[in-house]
């Protein structure tokens, strides 16, 4: 399995390099990073523009810029940002830390809910409960994420008004000042996390629960499950050890593949709740033609997506003993 993992990682490297090349070329050609500076009122002097162009390596040919960026990575140099005071390496770490805090918790909640709801829906197919879950799932699937997030904020404010104090927050991942010790800090962190986490989790949950339901139904109708029951195995054991385990494989694939979509979805959630994570990092970079920031974002998110896909592949082996890698 280790050899397989290493092989997969090595195969990913050229894919990663190819994607960085394409994105670097496209984002470099899209806009001139100096445009915002040129449009300032009062306008900067030609000397200022020249110095800025040199700092952003615009005085080098495009291919050379890419090479400088690629080789710089091995020295821990992510390149110069349009924002001269920014260290892209430090910034990308702190931004993704914020985003992953949001994403992982949301994914965990969404997965647990999806498995439970999917299994219950499949087992109780066409029951009132199944219809309720189906309705709820499609409701969340149909909701635009920004709209749902705004509704949640309004609901949070209504809740605060009802209890007479600010328990749920709508802006940022923490308050600027928290007094009252450790528990106050925990409450503050939770108060900031609840709404965005629910917002992100429920949207993923909706799709995943449908996958889980379909997958579970397929397995429940398969011959080997019927055989297991016919042999006299207990229903719970059949469900847990035979049906659920197999039915988790498609969800594992979908979850891994969805990571990219969740990172994209988090951009909206982060914006609505003003979490200064990777989403706003990317959006600001695109607006400001900050090529090297876009590249840093791509590098980190692509690496995580590759890793997640690898983890999903490895999990197949855990879930299904028939699959052998080495």
């Amino acid at each position: 399995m280790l050899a397989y993992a290493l092989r997969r990682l090595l195969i990913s490297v050229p894919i990663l390099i190819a994607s960085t090349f394409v994105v670097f070329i496209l984002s470099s050609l899209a806009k001139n990073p100096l445009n915002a500076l040129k449009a300032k009122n009062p306008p900067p002097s030609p000397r200022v523009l020249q110095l800025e162009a040199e700092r952003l390596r615009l005085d080098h040919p495009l291919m050379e810029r890419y090479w400088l960026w690629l080789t710089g990575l091995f020295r821990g140099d992510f390149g110069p940002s349009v924002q001269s005071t920014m260290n892209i390496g430090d910034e990308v770490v702190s931004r993704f830390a914020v985003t992953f805090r949001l994403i992982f918790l949301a994914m965990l909640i969404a997965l647990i809910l999806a498995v439970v709801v999917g299994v219950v829906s499949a087992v109780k197919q066409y029951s009132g409960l199944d219809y309720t879950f189906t309705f709820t799932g499609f409701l969340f699937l149909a909701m635009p994420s920004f709209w749902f997030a705004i509704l949640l904020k309004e609901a949070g404010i209504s809740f605060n008004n009802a209890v007479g104090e600010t328990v749920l927050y709508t802006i940022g991942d923490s308050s600027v000042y928290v007094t009252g010790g450790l528990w106050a800090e925990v409450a503050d962190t939770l108060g900031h996390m609840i709404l965005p986490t629910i917002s992100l989790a429920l949207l993923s949950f909706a799709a995943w629960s449908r996958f889980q339901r379909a997958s579970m139904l397929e397995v429940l109708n398969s011959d080997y499950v019927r055989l297991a029951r016919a042999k006299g195995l207990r229903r719970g054991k059949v469900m847990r050890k035979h049906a659920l385990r197999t039915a988790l494989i498609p969800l594992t694939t979908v979850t891994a593949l969805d990571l990219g979509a969740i990172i994209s979805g988090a951009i909206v959630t982060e914006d609505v709740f003003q979490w200064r994570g990777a989403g706003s990092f990317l959006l600001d970079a695109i607006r400001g033609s900050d090529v090297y920031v876009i590249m840093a974002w791509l590098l980190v998110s692509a690496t995580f997506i590759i890793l997640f896909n690898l983890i999903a592949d490895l999990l197949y082996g855990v879930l299904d003993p028939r699959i052998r890698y080495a």
Partner: protein
Amino acid sequence: MLTTKSRVVRAAALIAGAALAMSACSGDGGGDGEGGGQTGQIFADCDSNPNECNSAPDDQLQDGGEVTMAIEKNIANWNLNSSEGNVFETGMVMKAVLPSTYHSQPDLSFAMNEDVLQSAEMISEDPQTIEYKIHPDAQWSDGTPISADDFIYIWKTQNGRDCPDCAVSTTAGYEQVESVEGSDNGKTVTVTYSEPFTDWQQLWESGQPIYPAHIAAEHGDLDTPEGLKSAFDWFGTNVPTYSGGPFKIERFQNNQSITLVPNENYWGEKPNLDRVIFRIITDATQEPTALQNGEVQVIYPQPQVDLVQQVQNIPNVSSYIGLGLTWEHFDFNLDTEALKDKALRQALFTAVDRQGLIDKTVGQFTDKVEPLNNHNFMPGQDGYEDTVSETGQGSGDIEAAKKILTDAGYTLQGQQLMNPDGEPVPDMRIRYTTGNQIRQDSCELFAQAARELGVTVNVAPTDDLGGTLESGDYDVMVFAWVASPYPFANAVQNWTTGQGNNFGNYSNPEVDKLLKEAAAETNRQEAAQKVNQADKIMSEDAYVLPLYQKPTFIAAYDNLANVRNNSTLDGPVYNLKDWGLRAE
């Protein structure tokens, strides 16, 4: 049993859905049952008394307190005098931290900073010489006196000669300063100009504030270009621990917030509040909910219909729409062949109905906005004159527009306008910033007016306003300029031949002459007259059609005193030390 459970779940789902839907529909977010509607009227007299509205004497204020204000950008560079650091939000944060000679007031005038200066006088017109008397007690937070050395340091970085590689926001005015000398233990500063500079109050004012020379000297030799640049860059990179104003920065959380606390070594009147937090909310549409939830107490976003209505429904919050120095305009690109003909430009601008455009855009949330009739002065500023109306431009008078074209030899063949040579006037593109609905609507209205004259104008967005302007990839553009209480140097940059901000390549020798003379006057009234003469010529030339002053919008909780709108680049924080919480 199973049926009961499913009913319970179904009922719970319905209740949850209903709760969400109700919260979406309710304007006051559920409120406290006391009814929505705006209770606050703290800005009620700001139209008639912009500089003193919402005032409260100290004895009616709480001692201390904390206020959080939303700002829309992170602080990327702390040096306001650099081109990168010259950002409105950075200016707001630093307004009460750095000393300056002058600041802009809500009525769009400027006033001397009386805490820093005892006087500022022109003691000679030829050569123009200004004498600043610094307050004897004025000092930096570490006890070092604020002195002529600080003025000299700023001048050296800004004049374009001593530090050519300092990436300054502007050299205007500083490059005309021949010498800055200190006397009286550095408390008198004498500034001599090589040629007159009308806007001399603009130098070392709040938009180009004073940084401490003694700290600069710790980071570079101030007698060499390299040393000056090193110190200049250091001020941009490092969060200020120094202060020469009523507040100092206590804490900066990157991308999150900036906290100000009183500067204990401030020599002037102490601030009322003991903490001011600037919370970074980069999406203006999220500000009303943050205000409603009490996470911020003051917001200052660009107004939009929904946002204004949402805020007006928040209990115990007052809001005010002001008219500031930012003004929208249609610009022609004079490199477009068809638009080189003045008659066509005049006709197109005449066909534009500015009042109708206002009614359909910004007029939806305020009735204060009126057509703007000057390219350099805003209504309320000394010097404002109507130079546009008499040309008929912006009136929407289609018949008059058609007559201009007919007189110039244009003809209409069906729905197509033909130029005097009998060739069809080619289709044009009008561009606006992607996502800006008001500008998109303005462009649609322009295209509609042009269609009446037989000219097809296609509306096309751009996600790169600066790049589009710079490359000239437009025929007509709608965008905004920020006017200034110091308009004379600005006018040269925007309208004279070959200047960086003259994107449409307008050139009129008479305008060049008048504006350059106006910028080098010692008498502001005479300078204003020259600018207005140039303004009239510009109106006649139909290069840029002023549309309206963009509204600004402030909202604050009713218990906040001395907070008021200031639509200049100083913003509402121009008097931050006066802000306070009303005693209950």
